[in-house]
């Protein structure tokens, strides 16, 4: 399936771009992050992040669907 991944903040800098479209066989958001971390060397483990799929927060075991917009959320620091 194809998913659209957007990167923000530290992940954007570590990946060197703000988003990409990826072909993946990973079934869950967690599997996708761990695969991408393995490829790109993201410094933060999944347990420090949250995940948003199609603009809603979801659990890490959320099943991916073709065309999903996936955003991994590093620790926030607003305010």
């Amino acid at each position: 399936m194809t998913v659209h991944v957007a990167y923000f903040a530290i992940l954007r800098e570590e990946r060197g771009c703000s988003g990409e479209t990826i072909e993946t066989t990973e079934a869950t958001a967690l599997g996708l992050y761990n695969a991408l971390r393995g490829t790109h060397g993201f410094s933060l483990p999944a347990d420090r992040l949250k995940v948003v799929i199609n603009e809603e927060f979801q659990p890490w075991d959320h099943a991916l669907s073709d065309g999903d917009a996936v955003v991994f959320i590093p620790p926030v620091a607003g305010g």
Partner: protein
Amino acid sequence: MFSISAVPIDPSIHHAALREPAAGACVTFEGWVRNRNEGRAVVSLEYEGYDAVAVKEGERILAEARERFAIAGAVCIHRTGHLRLGDMAVWVGVSAGHRGAAFDACRYIIDETKLRLPIWKKEHYEDGDSEWINCQAVPTAIARPVTLPG
């Protein structure tokens, strides 16, 4: 109303939106860029937001505040972009019949905003270094060497 602003926040515009005949109290909070964090001299910072989700989550926080506290109006604006010392990073305004609910709701909104909004802060330090706050691979308390007295 919650919004993200890439330009300086003008509280006077949003203040007017809080006015209601039944409101006898108004509490506002301004978050400013401070010159030190964790002992390091800060010269400027950048806020980056996932705007679509930040607005959704911000509206949820305001709705929760309306459910929990007897308030009339609530507004929160968060800046993104490059900010200098003293710039306003966030503005919260709450109006209510009485001051108790206005103080409580204002506190609730800023606390939840800091915890939940997908907004990130990169601090630039006097020594030229910079850092995404809360994003160290090893939590700060462990990464920083502890200096024992004596």
